[in-house]
C-alpha cells in the first residue's frame, strides 16, 4: 500500500514538474504550449545522447540547458510574434511544432524504444515497510519537492519572481509600470522548457524512450493544469499529487479503465468548480 502511494508520488512529481512549466508560461503569455510534451520527450533524448558519451548527471544538466535554450527560441519566434493574435493561433502553431519535433526525433534516433539507465549511485533499492523500493524513485520525488520549494521561494523573494507574479495578474499594467515583459517572458519560458527537460530526463530511466512518450504525459499534465485552475501554482501542485495517486491506483487495481479515472475526476471537479480547484482565471 505504502509502495503504491510512493509510486503515485513519483508520477505525480513528474506531472508536477511538467505542469508547473505550463503554468509559468500561461502566466506570462496567456497561452498553452501544446509542444510541452515534446519538450519533455526531447529532454529525454538529449539526456540519452549525452549519457552515451559521459554520465547521467552531465546528461541531466545538458538536457536542462539545451531545453532552456530551445525555450528562449520558442518564446522569441512563436509566443512573442503571436502575442497579439488569438491564443488559438499559438495553440495550433505549437501543435504543429509537436508534430515536427516528434518527426525530427524519429529521424535522428529511430522509432524503437531506447532506455537510459539510472545512475549507479542511485541504482540500489531500500526497504520500506517490508518491501523494496528503488532509490532512484525516491530521488524523483525529492527532485519534485525541491522544484516546488525552489519555485515558490523564487516567485516570492526574487525581483523577477515579483514581475512574474505581477504579469500573471495583469500583463498590460505590469508592462506600463516599466517591466519588460518580453524579457521576463523569455526567462520564464526558458525555465518552463528547462523543467520539461528535467522532467524528461528523470522520467527516462522509469519509462522507455520513444518519440511518442510525450503525448501521454502531456494529456495528464493538461488534466493537472485544468483541474488545478489554469495559471495557479498551488492548484497544479495539489492536482498533480491527486492525479498521480489516482493514476497509479487505476493502473494497479483496474488496468483496463485506468485512463478513465483521471478523466472522470476532472469532469467531477469541473462540475463542482468550473474554474478548477484554485478557482483562478480560466
Amino acid at each position, binding site marked *: 500500500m505504502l509502495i503504491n502511494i510512493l509510486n503515485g508520488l513519483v508520477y505525480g512529481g513528474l506531472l508536477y514538474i511538467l505542469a508547473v512549466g505550463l503554468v509559468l508560461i500561461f502566466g506570462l503569455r496567456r497561452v*498553452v504550449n501544446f509542444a510541452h510534451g515534446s519538450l519533455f520527450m526531447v529532454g529525454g533524448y538529449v539526456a540519452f545522447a549525452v549519457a552515451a558519451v559521459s554520465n547521467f548527471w552531465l546528461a541531466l544538466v545538458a538536457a536542462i540547458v539545451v531545453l532552456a535554450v530551445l525555450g528562449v527560441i520558442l518564446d522569441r519566434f512563436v509566443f512573442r510574434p503571436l502575442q497579439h493574435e488569438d491564443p488559438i493561433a499559438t495553440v*495550433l502553431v505549437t501543435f504543429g511544432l509537436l*508534430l*515536427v519535433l516528434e*518527426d525530427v526525433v524519429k529521424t535522428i534516433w529511430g522509432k524503437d524504444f531506447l532506455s537510459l539507465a539510472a545512475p549507479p549511485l542511485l541504482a540500489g533499492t531500500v526497504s520500506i515497510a517490508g518491501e523494496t523500493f528503488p532509490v532512484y524513485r525516491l530521488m524523483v520525488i525529492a527532485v519534485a519537492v525541491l522544484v516546488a520549494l525552489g519555485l515558490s521561494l523564487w516567485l516570492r523573494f526574487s525581483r523577477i519572481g515579483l514581475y512574474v507574479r505581477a504579469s500573471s495578474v495583469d500583463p498590460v499594467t505590469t508592462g506600463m509600470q516599466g517591466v519588460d515583459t518580453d524579457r521576463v517572458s523569455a526567462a520564464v519560458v526558458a525555465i518552463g522548457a528547462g523543467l520539461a527537460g528535467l522532467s524528461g530526463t528523470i522520467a527516462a530511466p522509469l519509462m522507455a524512450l520513444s518519440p511518442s512518450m510525450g503525448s501521454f504525459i502531456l*494529456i495528464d499534465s*493538461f488534466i493537472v493544469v485544468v483541474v488545478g485552475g489554469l495559471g495557479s501554482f498551488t492548484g497544479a501542485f495539489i492536482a498533480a499529487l491527486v492525479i498521480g495517486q489516482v493514476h497509479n491506483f487505476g493502473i494497479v487495481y483496474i488496468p*483496463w479503465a485506468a485512463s478513465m479515472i483521471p478523466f472522470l475526476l476532472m*469532469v467531477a471537479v469541473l462540475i463542482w468548480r468550473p474554474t478548477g480547484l484554485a478557482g483562478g482565471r*480560466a
Partner: protein
Amino acid sequence: MTDIAAAPSRSRNVGFPAVLAVLGAAGCALPFLVQSPLLLTLMTQATINAVLATGVGFLLRQNGTVSFGHAAFFGLAAYATALLIKFGLPAELAIVLAVVLPTLLALLLGVVIVRITGVAFSMLTLAVAQAFHELFLKWRELANGDDGMAIAFPAKVFGLDIAIFQQPASMFLVCWLALVGVILGLWLLARSRFGTLTLAIRENEERARYIGYRTVLPRAIIYAISAAVCALGGLLFALYNGFVSPGTLHWSLSGEALIMAIIGGPRLIWGPALGGVIFFFIKNAAGDFTDHWPAVIGITLILVTVLLPRGVGGLLVWLGRRAGGGRGE
C-alpha cells in the same frame, strides 16, 4: 479578435444552396467518370475525412473553440456500430444508435466542458479523446484492444445490399450525398435564430447573458451537433471498412481533422470539407515521396495558421470576390 473563426458576412450566402446543389450533382457524376478503383477509394476516404473535418470546423466556427478530441465521437460511432451488432441488435437500429449515442454523450459532456472556454477547453478535449482511446485499447474483453474488431454486418441493411456500402463507386455516392446534406443542414442551422445566437455568445458570452440568454446550453448543443457530424463520419467509416480499431479514437486523428479544418478555412461552413479533401490528397501524394509525413503536416499547419488564417476557402472567396467584383463563392 477571432481572426481564425471570424464572423461571416451574410450577403455572401445568397445563392449558396444553388451552388451546393450544382456541386452535389457534379460530385454524383464523378463515379461514372473516374474509372480507376484506387482513385475512387481515395475519393471515398477523402469524403469521409471531409465529414469529420466539417464537424470539427463547425464547432470552431460557432463556438470559437478548438477541439482536439473529436476523433472520440468518430471512433465511438464506429465502435458502437460494431459492438451493438455484436450484442445482437438489428443492424439498422445499431446504425441509428451509432450516431445517437455519441451525440447524447457529447451533449452531457458538453454541459460540463463548454463552461471552460479558450485554451483550457482545447486541453480538456484532448483528455476526452485520450480517455476513450485508452479504454478501448486496454479493455480487451470488450473490443479486442489493439487488434480492432471486424463488424458483422448482415447481407442487407435498410433493404440495401451491404456491398453498396463497401464498394468505392457506390459508397462514394453515399458519402458525398451525406457530406452535401451535412453542409446544407449546418448552413441552414448557422443562419437560423439559434445559429446567430451562438455566434453572439461566441463573440461575447457575458453580454449575451446580460441580455437574458442562457449561454451554456446553446454552446453544449453546438458541441453535440458537431459531435453528431463526426459520429456520422465514423458510421460511414465503419460501413465502408467493416472494421474498427483504436486508431479511430486516437487524438492524432482529432489533430488531423483540426488541421483539415484550418487548411480549408473554418469561418466557412464548407471550408473544412474542402480542407479535408486537400489534406487527404496531399497526404497521399506526400506519402509516396517522404517518410516525414508528420513534419510535412506540422509545417503546413504552422504556415497556414500564420500566413493564411482564413484557409484555402477564405483565399478562394477572396479571389472569387476580386474576379466577380463583389459576389463570390
